[in-house]
C-alpha cells in the first residue's frame, strides 16, 4: 500500500447553483521517499489537490488514505491528528504567526503534540539548525526576509517528523535566487529520505524532481516518472502515463 492513495477524488465548489468541479476524479499514489512535483495552468486545481492531500480540506467524493488511515470520512479531530503527526505543509505565503518568535513558530506543532517546553525548544532548535535559521530563533517573522521566513516555515513543517511534506508554490513569493536555495533545501531533504510533494509553475523546477504530475481541469493529464526511464536525462524521452497504461506496467494499477 502506498503512503498516499487517492481514488476518484473529486472536489466540487457549489457557488449558489453554479458548481465548480475543481477536482474531477483524481487517482494518485505517492510512495514513501518520492519527490513529486505538480504542475498545471492556473485554476487547474493544483492547490485544491494539495489542500486535500494535506488534510486541510475534505474531498467531495472519492476515497483517500494516508499512511493507511482513511481520510475522507474522518472526523475533524482525527484530521487534526493526521495534520499534526503525519503531515508537514509549506505555504506560498509562509503563514507564520506574526506575534510569535521564529522558535515559537516552529514549536507550534509540538505544542499540539503535547511536548514539554524543554523538549519543544530542543527539537525546534534542531530543525532550525537544519534550515540554517538557528541564529535567528528569537526574531519575529517581520524581521526576516521572505526566503528566511520560508526556511522557518519549512522548519515548522519538519519539526514533527512528518511522513510527507506538501509545499504549495513555496518559491512563488521569492526571487529566483532565493527560490533556488529553498529548492536546494528540498532536494537535500529528499536525499535524506523524506517524501515531498511540490506545486510549482516553473517547468525548470518541475524538471528537477524525479516525478512530475500535470493537472488540467481538475484531472491528472500527464505524468512523468524519471525513475522509469533510468539513464535518460531528457524528460521528453520519458514514458508518459498513457504510455505506461498502454504497456500495462504501471505500478499504480496493481
Amino acid at each position, binding site marked *: 500500500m502506498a503512503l498516499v492513495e487517492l481514488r476518484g477524488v473529486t472536489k466540487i465548489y457549489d457557488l449558489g447553483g453554479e458548481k465548480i468541479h475543481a477536482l474531477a476524479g483524481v487517482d494518485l499514489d505517492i510512495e514513501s521517499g518520492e519527490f513529486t512535483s505538480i504542475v498545471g495552468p492556473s485554476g487547474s486545481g493544483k492547490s485544491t489537490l494539495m489542500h486535500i492531500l494535506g488534510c486541510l480540506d475534505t474531498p467531495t467524493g472519492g476515497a483517500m488514505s494516508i499512511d493507511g488511515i482513511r481520510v475522507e470520512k474522518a472526523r475533524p479531530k482525527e484530521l487534526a491528528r493526521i495534520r499534526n*503527526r503525519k503531515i508537514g505543509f509549506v505555504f506560498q505565503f509562509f503563514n507564520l504567526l506574526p*506575534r510569535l518568535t521564529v522558535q515559537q513558530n516552529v514549536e507550534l506543532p509540538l505544542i499540539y503534540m503535547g511536548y514539554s517546553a524543554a523538549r519543544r525548544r530542543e527539537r525546534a532548535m534542531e530543525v532550525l539548525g537544519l534550515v540554517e535559521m538557528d541564529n535567528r530563533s528569537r526574531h519575529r517573522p517581520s524581521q526576516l526576509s521572505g526566503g528566511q521566513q520560508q526556511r522557518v516555515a519549512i522548519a515548522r513543517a519538519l519539526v514533527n517528523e512528518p511522513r510527507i511534506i506538501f509545499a504549495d508554490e513555496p518559491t512563488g513569493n521569492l526571487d529566483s535566487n532565493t527560490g533556488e536555495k529553498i529548492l536546494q533545501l528540498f532536494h537535500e531533504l529528499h536525499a535524506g529520505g523524506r517524501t515531498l510533494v511540490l506545486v510549482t509553475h516553473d517547468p525548470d523546477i518541475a524538471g528537477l524532481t524525479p516525478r512530475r504530475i500535470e493537472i488540467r481541469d481538475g484531472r491528472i493529464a500527464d505524468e512523468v516518472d524519471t525513475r522509469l526511464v533510468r539513464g535518460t536525462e531528457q524528460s521528453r524521452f520519458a514514458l508518459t502515463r498513457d504510455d505506461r497504461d498502454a504497456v500495462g506496467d504501471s505500478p499504480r494499477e496493481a
Partner: protein
Amino acid sequence: MDFGAVIANSIREIKGHPVRSFLTMFGIILGISSLVAMNAVVKGMENGLKEALIEMGGMDKFEIGEEDELPDYQAHLGDQIPGLTMADVYALQASAPLLSQITPAVEMSRWNSRLSVRHEGRFARPYRLYGTWPSYMELEDHHVQHGRMFNDIDEEMANSVCVISTGIRDDLFGSPESTGEEVIPVGRTIFINDMPFEIIGMFQHYETETERKERLERMRLIREGKIKAPSNGSISRQGSFIYRLKNNSIFIPLRTMLIKFMSSKSEEPEPVQRIDTINVRVPDLESLDASIQQARNVLMITHRGIEDFSFRTEEDMAEEVQLTIRNYRVSGAVIAGIALVVGGVGIMNIMLASISERIREIGICKAVGATDAAVFNQILIESIFLSIIGGIIGLAASQAVIALISSLTPTDNTPEVTGASLIFALCSSVMVGILSGIYPGLKASRFSPMEALKYE
C-alpha cells in the same frame, strides 16, 4: 495540550492590545469592585447591628412612646390626646404585673431643644440629656467607671447632679489624647442651660475591641512623642452610632429634669406631668408579647381608649435595620450583576473581534494540528484570563470604592471585607469569563482550516 503555552499566548494577546484589553476588563473591574464593596458595607452594617443589640442591653424590653398619628377611626379625637404622663407609669406599676421594671424618661437633645453645656468657656455637644431613674442604666447597659450613679435620694431631692459619658468630658476637660492623661472630672460643676450641676459619675468609654486597641496604640505613640497630640480631638465621636450615642450622653435624675427643664413646679411629680418614653423590662423574651398586651390594656384605660401611644421593641429596630441591610444587599447585587453582565458582554465582544482578526492565525494553528477543542480552549482560557485579571484589579479597586462610599455616606459602621466575599468575587469573574468565552470559542473552533486560511 500545554497549559503554560496557552497562558503565554493569552498574555501575548493582552499585551498586544493593552488599551483594548483594559477597556474590555472595565466592566468586570466595576462589577467585581462594587460586589466586594457592597458586601463589605453590608457586612459592616450587620456588625453594627450585632454590636448595637448587645450594647443596648438585650432584647427583653420595650419602649412605650407617644404616637402623634391616631388610628383612622380615632382621627377626630386628635385634640384630646392625653400623651404619656407619670400617671401611666403609676398605672403600669400598679396594674401590669408582667412588667418587671418600669423606667420613665424625658429626653432633651441638641436637635429638639436648646441645650448648652459649658464649663469654664468650653462647650460640650451632647447627643442627648436624659432625665430618668437610675434603673435606666440597666436598660442601656451603662457602666459607671468613676464616681457613682445618682440614686433614689438624688431623685427624691431632685438634686442637681449629673452623670456624664467620656465624650462630654473630652469636650469640657480635654480628651486623654490631647491632655496626655485621663481627666476624671467627678466633683466638678458644669452648667447645663446655665444651671449648675455637679458631676457625680462618669461612664466607661464604650468602644469595640479593635477600637480599644487602636486607641491604646495611639495613646502610646503620643506618649512616646511619635505622633502629635490632637489639640482638641474627641475620640468619642468615632465608631458606630450606638457607641457615639452612649459616649455623648448626660444623665440627670428625672425629677431634676422635670423641675429644672420642664417647668414643673410641684415637689412631687404630678400625675399629669408629660414624659417622653416609658422603658419597660420584661422577665424574659418569651413574655414580651404578653407584656406588651398587658401594658396596652392598662394604657387603653388611662388614655380613655385613645391609642396615642406605640410600642417599640428591639426586634422592631433590628427588623428595620435588617430591612435596610437587605435593601442594600439587593441593590448591591443588582448593580454588581448588571456590571458583570455588561463586563461579560464586553469580553465576549472583544473575543469575537479578536477571533475575526485572528482567523488566519487560527487557520495556521489548525493546519499544524490544533484540534477544535484546542482552539476552543485557547479562546476560553483567554477570556477567563481577561476576566480574572479584571477581577483582581476589581478587588484592588474595591478598596477605593469602599473609601468612596464611606466618604459619601459616612455610615456608622466600618465596612468589612470578608475572605468569603473575595473568593465569591473571584469565582464570579471566572464564571463571567467562562460564560462570555463559550460562544466565541465555539465560533472560532468551527472554522475549517481551509476557510480560516483563506479568510481575508
